[in-house]
């Protein structure tokens, strides 16, 4: 059988479950809770398979050396990885403890039941608790990957409503984010950043450093990395501003100002065909030929997606202390183990002298400034041994320096035959890589070279050129392969070089742009064929679960009288994330004003994410993903000129606010007993596609450039 990836590296039950003296159970996981409620889902799974009350279960925050190394919390994989491992660990443990109890009680295992951790005989009433069974026994038992799991009919916790782990503290302001740490002798710290990535310090007025020192502010410098630290936070912020004004910058070549979409099409690139299954192959790209003779209609479609920010509401932060040759770091990184490796390498420290612990931060939605801030804090902490350093990025720093989601261009062409069937399809996507930016081993360049401030130190590591990611549905070719039945689609990824900004993983990677592009063209083809949009998709979709999601969306929108108003327009879109995770269909109802502003009215989401553990959690992920993708679609673009990023606050990088939040209706299709399918990213692409399609139905315009704001809608109107 397939070896489960997380169990292969952590095969014992006690690497996942800990029974504590106060009769609670601690779940150890390598996946971190970044607001997606993964700890709630993992606790439900453990409660279910152990037959223990959900409220008796705590989920520990990942710490290097103590908890499983499950790499990054990314790609909607936490339920498949940690969820499945904890499920099997819990089921193994339950069977093991029932056998132990049978021995102790002198009864047959089959006569025993478990209720909240108490094993009891149905016949005699004799009982013993899990915890007393384990007082003199270790749980060093191998996980049985064939351990029988609970039958859905017997579930007590899976699929039921619970209060999410941590929510009560959040609402009461008691959650301690890494930003909130207050440790004895702690210093508050800020980095003094250059104007842009090409700038370096030419000279620095050292009298300012002396003045600052006299007032109790420490300055830390290594090449063009510069930071201040002080006991008082406000003083540290003022010192950083003062220090910035004392620097003469060498601005180097500045930021390339060539239009990014022109650059994507014309810069040097590596081009690869994407084969069936969604992975690129090392072969020449076949040229785009004339449409086949049977083609009666041929349509083209373009989508341009600008650089997008993760846009965490709390700028990145980290706390570090260097004491007794041990560097301890508190971070909201999505991968404490990979980060530990990168920082140890950058600082030439033995791996076992660096300890990294996860603490909550603001939602990150991918690789934002978290890892970079952790390294900044480490650099400063090394300069002030024994003192904890709490380093916070500013809003401006987060906006200007986080690794952005790649800008992309998608060029599509498709043909229909006389029966309205798609008989020809070409889809080329141009972009920078999404997945080479994380500070992790085994990818282009050293992990240490990915840490932002390492590039500004005296001994800055070499930057390597990104190489194309080759796995199925990763990077810019995520969801490039359509799920629809299309004969021999021509699929091409172009990894483009010499682009102006550092990029890395942002929720959905390339799937957002690819799905929006596919779904826009599919919708236009449906109109050209004279077939309603849902019906046209069903005609090209064999996947039964996908069909059900689309049909449910159609029924729900009809039941809610979508389309009954003259002034509102509707659009739908559908995708299965990575063609392997959750299925999701979205309907959007909107209005485009005379001034070309888009107002969202209602939204419908239908999703099949396999077996549902925490329905309210999945619903929140889908709704939240919809709001975020609507914001990308309507408002967002990173702006810049030769002097650097110009979108440095929430006015210059607007995101969706309350006054454009649609009423969202979410419908989940539960599949008890089926594998978990990650849901955190499924809704993004379909949301963008549904918005694009609704705007086209409202205006008759195919707006090819995102965001679909006043400027770009008007530009599309002028082009027509």
């Amino acid at each position, binding site marked *: 059988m397939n070896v489960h990836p997380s169990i292969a590296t952590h095969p014992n039950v006690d690497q996942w479950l800990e029974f504590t003296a106060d009769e609670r159970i601690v779940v150890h996981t390598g996946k971190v809770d*970044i607001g997606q409620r993964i700890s709630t889902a993992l606790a439900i799974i453990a409660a279910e398979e152990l037959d223990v009350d959900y409220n008796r279960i705590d989920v520990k925050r990942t710490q290097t050396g103590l908890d499983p190394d499950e790499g990054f919390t990314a790609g909607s994989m936490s339920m498949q990885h940690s969820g499945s491992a904890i499920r099997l660990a819990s089921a193994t443990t339950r069977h093991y403890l029932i056998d132990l109890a049978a021995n102790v009680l002198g009864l047959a295992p089959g006569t025993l039941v478990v209720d909240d951790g108490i094993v009891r005989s149905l016949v005699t009433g004799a009982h013993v608790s899990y915890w007393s069974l384990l007082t003199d026994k270790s749980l060093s038992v191998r996980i049985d990957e064939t351990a029988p799991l609970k039958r859905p009919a017997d579930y007590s916790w899976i699929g039921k409503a619970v209060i999410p782990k941590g929510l009560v503290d*959040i*609402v009461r*302001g008691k959650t301690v984010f890494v930003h909130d740490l207050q440790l004895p002798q702690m210093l508050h710290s800020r980095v003094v950043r250059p104007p842009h990535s090409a700038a370096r310090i030419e000279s620095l007025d050292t009298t300012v450093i002396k003045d600052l020192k006299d007032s109790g502010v420490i300055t830390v410098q290594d090449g063009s990395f510069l930071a201040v630290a002080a006991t008082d936070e406000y003083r540290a912020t003022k010192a950083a501003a003062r220090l910035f004004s004392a620097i003469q910058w060498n601005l180097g070549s500045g930021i390339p100002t060539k239009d990014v979409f022109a650059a994507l099409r014309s810069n040097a690139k590596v081009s690869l065909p994407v084969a069936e299954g969604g992975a690129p192959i090392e072969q020449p790209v076949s040229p785009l030929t004339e449409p086949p003779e049977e083609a009666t209609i041929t349509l083209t479609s373009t989508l341009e997606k600008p650089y997008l920010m993760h846009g965490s*509401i*709390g700028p990145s932060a980290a706390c570090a202390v260097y004491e007794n040759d041990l560097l301890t770091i508190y971070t909201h990184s999505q991968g404490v183990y990979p980060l530990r490796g990168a920082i140890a390498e950058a600082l030439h420290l033995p791996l076992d002298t660096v300890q990294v612990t996860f603490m909550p931060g*603001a939602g990150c939605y991918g690789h934002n400034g978290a890892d970079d801030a952790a390294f900044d804090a480490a650099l400063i902490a090394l300069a002030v041994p024994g003192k904890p350093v709490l380093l916070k990025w500013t809003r401006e720093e987060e906006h200007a320096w986080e690794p952005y989601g790649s800008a992309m261009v998608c060029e599509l062409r498709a043909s229909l035959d006389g029966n309205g069937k798609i008989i020809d399809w070409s889809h080329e996507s141009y972009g920078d890589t999404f997945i080479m930016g994380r500070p992790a081993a085994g990818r282009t360049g050293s992990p240490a070279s990915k840490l932002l401030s390492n590039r500004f130190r005296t001994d800055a590591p070499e930057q390597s050129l990104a190489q194309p990611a080759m796995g199925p549905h990763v990077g810019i070719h995520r969801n490039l392969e359509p799920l629809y039945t299309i004969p021999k689609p021509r699929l091409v990824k172009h990894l483009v070089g010499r682009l102006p900004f550092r990029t890395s993983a942002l929720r959905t990677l390339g799937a957002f742009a690819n799905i929006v592009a596919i779904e826009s063209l599919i919708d236009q083809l449906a109109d050209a064929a004279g077939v309603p949009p849902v019906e046209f998709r069903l005609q090209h979709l064999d996947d039964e679960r996908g069909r059900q999601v689309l049909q449910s969306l159609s029924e729900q929108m009809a039941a809610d009288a979508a389309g009954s108003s003259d002034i509102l327009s509707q659009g739908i879109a559908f995708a299965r994330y990575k063609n392997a995770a959750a299925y999701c269909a979205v309907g959007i109802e909107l209005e485009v004003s005379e001034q070309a502003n888009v107002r969202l009215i209602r939204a419908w989401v239908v999703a099949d994410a396999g077996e549902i553990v925490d329905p309210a959690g999945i619903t*929140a992920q889908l709704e939240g993903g*919809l709001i975020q993708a609507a914001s990308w679609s309507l408002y967002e673009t990173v702006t810049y000129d030769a002097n650097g990023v110009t979108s440095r606050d929430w006015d210059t990088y607007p995101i969706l606010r*309350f006054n454009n939040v649609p009423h969202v209706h979410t419908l989940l299709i539960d599949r008890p007993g089926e594998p978990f399918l990650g849901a955190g990213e499924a809704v993004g692409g379909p949301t963008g596609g549904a918005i694009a399609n609704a705007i086209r139905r409202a205006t008759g315009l195919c707006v090819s450039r995102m965001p679909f704001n006043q400027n770009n809608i008007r530009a599309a109107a002028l082009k027509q």
Partner: protein
Amino acid sequence: MIALTINGQVHALEVAPDTPLVFVLRNELGLTGTKIGCASEQCGACAVLVDGESTLSCVRPVADFVDQQVVTIEGMSEDPMGSRVQQAFIEEGAAQCGYCTPGMVIATTALLNQINRPTATDIHGALNIHLCRCGSQPRVLAAIQRVTDRNT
């Protein structure tokens, strides 16, 4: 020395009078529920109640708040409406990462203390400054609905 009334208690503090209120709340008084999101009054994470009004604390100096009643998220459960709003947020799951949530609770409480049954325009007026990147807004709106449904 600056005297501030925070969550009903008077504190005499040795702080520079130009220090923004949020730093004083967080670092001098340990009230870290109030967050810093933008430090430029653009996101709402730092909202506190000042004499019952939702007020941003990330720019205005602490000296501005002398003689005023400041209530932070930590004092919200003492406010009858604040307590109801918190309960509704829990019941509706109106938070994901939770970084913006204290500000949202403050703004919602101020709104519902002033208007029993707010219109969509009232709600936008009160909450538009509050950014949430996780997309918890539909749940927050549901929480507001939940409180007003009980205001009968």
